[in-house]
């Protein structure tokens, strides 16, 4: 099956700066992927290039089987909602009407439901909205478009925790009925952890982690106890972080543990603490970056 999004060798250079460095990654239909990474890692550039709002310096991007650049047929099946999305000086209702003309799968019914859920006044000029409400307008457009490719780039500037929860709940509910390819770039990893099937982490323009979310979660454990016991247990396993406090040590082990491992840890009087997806991702990407650095020196 052709992936919905196929990116190969994508590089984007600015003057003296490489924003994306030889990125190759595919996204299948009907998945929700978390696009993770620090500020300036290249996430926004990546999403903008997918949406043909920016152009590659090198490499190939296919969305729904074709290049998105100046390709109306593809662009109408794709929506990108950005952080601090700006709108022309019109009312909320007009934004939605314009979107309904552009997106063939637009659901007016869903848009109306979402307006109510976010308590958005359709008659108010977008300019007069608070930052959070403007973000909510973007989310309404992004979900009601029901675009086959739905890209959210940190869509919740200024949104409070309650409104973010509404976003997640509505995304799950509508995605369940109308599966599509969703890429969600976010810093709030733990908040969305349950939504994600896959996590792709970009660091300094490169993909440093690309894995099933449940695999990452299950594969990362903090092991703590007496220094010799911890070191005995960790020997031969990937260790991503090691801290000591007097005779006590704590390491992050980056491979899945078997029942036998757990029993052994009990015998050694070690404490095993599973890491949250957010912590796991931080360690896994640091570990991957470390391995890469070692590899390049070899």
């Amino acid at each position, binding site marked *: 099956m052709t992936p919905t999004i196929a990116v190969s060798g994508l590089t984007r250079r600015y003057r003296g700066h490489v924003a994306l460095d030889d990125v190759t990654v595919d996204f299948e239909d*009907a*998945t*929700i992927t978390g696009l993770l990474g620090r500020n300036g890692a290249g996430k926004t550039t990546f999403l903008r290039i997918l949406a043909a709002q920016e152009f590659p310096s090198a490499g190939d991007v296919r969305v729904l089987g074709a290049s998105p650049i100046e390709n109306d047929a593809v662009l109408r099946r794709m929506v990108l909602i950005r952080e601090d999305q700006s709108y022309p000086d019109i009312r909320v209702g007009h934004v939605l009407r314009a979107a309904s003309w552009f997106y063939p799968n637009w659901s007016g019914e869903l848009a109306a439901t979402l307006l109510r859920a976010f308590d958005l006044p359709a008659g108010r000029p977008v300019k007069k909205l608070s930052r959070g409400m403007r973000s909510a307008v973007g989310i309404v457009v992004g979900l009601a478009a029901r675009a086959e490719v739905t890209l959210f780039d940190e869509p919740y500037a200024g949104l409070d925790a309650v409104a973010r929860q509404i976003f*997640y*709940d509505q995304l*799950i*509910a509508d*995605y*369940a*009925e109308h*599966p599509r390819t969703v890429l969600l770039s976010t810093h709030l990893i*733990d908040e969305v*952890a*349950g*939504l*994600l*099937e896959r996590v792709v982490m970009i660091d300094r323009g490169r993909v440093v982690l690309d894995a099933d*979310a*449940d*695999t990452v*979660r*299950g594969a990362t454990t903090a092991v703590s106890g007496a220094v010799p016991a911890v070191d005995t247990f960790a020997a031969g396993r990937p260790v991503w972080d090691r801290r000591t406090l007097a005779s006590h040590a704590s390491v992050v082990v980056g491979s899945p543990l078997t029942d036998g491992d757990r*029993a052994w840890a*009990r*015998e050694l*009087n070690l404490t095993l603490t*599973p*890491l*949250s*997806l957010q912590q796991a991702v931080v360690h896994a990407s640091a570990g991957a970056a470390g391995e890469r650095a070692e590899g390049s020196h070899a």
Partner: protein
Amino acid sequence: MGVLDDSSPIFAQIAERLADEIADGTLAEGERAPSSNELAAFYRINPATAAKGLNVLTEDGLLEKRRGVGMFVAAGARERLVERRRQAFAQRYVAPMVAEATRLGIDAGALLALVRQVSDDPPGAAAVDGTQPSSARGGITV
């Protein structure tokens, strides 16, 4: 993520939750199990992850697919679960208890006496709200 935690993959936790409900009879045999979309909405998780959790139980024969209707708790599912959990009880509960007792210098005899004492008079049994002592809940805790 609501009531789920980071202890294991989410799909495994979903499977475990449903198995718990089958074991304690909340989900009775022949009853329809929640659909993946219902689980997704309730636990705020990806529907594919919820489906994976349900799949664990169908492959195990604890749930049965009825085409176009949904998943139903299979006949004998509860008994099989309880039996399996009884077998896992020593490994899962007794072994860690013995390990901790050994660390504290409690020998097997003293440990048995403690077990008997707690079993006769569970802590919290005298709770003012009159809730049942945990031992009175029967097979649920296995």
